[in-house]
């Protein structure tokens, strides 16, 4: 067991965890923030994407102990009173069907818009599709997800 401390959605948290505890299990089982999903065991689906120190990472492919001292944001932490522009865009464009992949899509979407803005690059449809390579959706065929991210990119 190791004591880990980090900031999650702006709140300081701390717990004793087994060293093998995945960050996603810490978030879901210990903190009971169940918006971050687990969709695979091969690190391929992206349902578990969270931001660690501002960067998109797969919480299923990282140990909680590795995130000791980090600043973590999950889907529960992106709305600020009102929905985040990315959440609103998924709502406006019906960017989901069952919704299982949506938390990861939104976290990856926010990350890509932030990165492209910081680099002064345009996030067009081709770029969005390339950037979504690590997020799998079994329902929508991606079309409305891409539209949602495009809308949010214009508003963020």
């Amino acid at each position, binding site marked *: 067991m*190791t004591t880990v401390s980090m900031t999650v959605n702006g709140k300081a948290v701390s717990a004793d965890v*087994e*060293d*093998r505890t*995945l960050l996603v299990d810490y978030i879901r089982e210990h903190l009971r923030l169940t918006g971050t999903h687990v969709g695979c*065991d*091969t*690190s*391929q689906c*992206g349902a578990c*994407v969270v931001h660690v120190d501002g*960067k*998109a*990472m*797969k919480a*299923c*492919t*990282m*140990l909680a*102990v*590795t995130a*000791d001292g980090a600043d973590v944001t999950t889907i529960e932490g992106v709305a600020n009173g009102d929905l985040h522009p990315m959440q609103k865009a998924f709502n406006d464009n019906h960017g989901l069907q069952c919704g299982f992949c949506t938390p990861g899509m939104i976290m*990856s979407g926010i*990350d*890509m818009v932030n*990165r492209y803005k910081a680099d002064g690059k345009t996030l067009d449809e081709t770029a969005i599709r390339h*950037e979504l*390579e*690590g*997020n799998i959706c079994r329902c929508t065929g991606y079309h409305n997800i891409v539209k949602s991210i495009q809308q949010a990119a214009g508003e963020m």
Partner: protein
Amino acid sequence: MHNTKYHKAGSAADAASLLSGADDGTVLAGGQTLIPTMKARLAAPSDLVDVSCASDMRGISVSGNTVTIGAAMTHAEVAGSSEVRAICPAICDLASNIGDPAVRNRGTLGGSVANNDPAADYPAAMLALGATIKTNTRDIAADDFFTGMFDTALDEGEIITSVSFTAPSKGAYAKFPNPASRYAMCGVFVASTDAGVRVAVTGAGSDGVFRAGDMEAALGSDFSASALDGATVDAGDMLSDLHGDGVYRANLVKVMAKRAVTAAG
């Protein structure tokens, strides 16, 4: 995942001593290969020594034509380095197409090279660039480093600290990603320097990354895509699986080599 004991190393020397004190310890870098492997219980190290923050394994330096990249640098950091891009854009482009953005934010150059997955991208770059793999104990030439699929010249407990190479006058990497995994079905890195042309192929060979001698000879006298018309790789030495048989992959090597030469200009 079986239980394990986690340690964070501050330096390569710190990591080496933590490893030597462990029963059956393993280096953990970005974890993008090791953690899925541990989740599948295909690996169960007693101890994990995390080198992702080891200060002497981080950083990028460019001096003249020599590029040195710390083993703990992530794919995203290499892709985004304007210093490296100015002198060797091919390696930045290669890094920017590994996996997906989240994998690139954690996966490291050292982890990719140490793992030597037969479909990984970096091994082709290291071999074509004639890179030197620096470890905590010695320097190893890329030609001697990659010793077959998932196999390297690293000794037990040896840690890659950085890699360095001379930027080629012309160089490019062309990758045909597997449509499902996005790993290379075939990736060809072509590098032209004063010493000649080197062509390294990943994804296609049945024993991991290899140099295509025929193609190197053809490009040595004429650095153009058409010079490769008559060059071949042996289909019998290629991987043959549900994604493509040996003949298909041998042809793919030629197609990707031509694309790389064209992109290199």
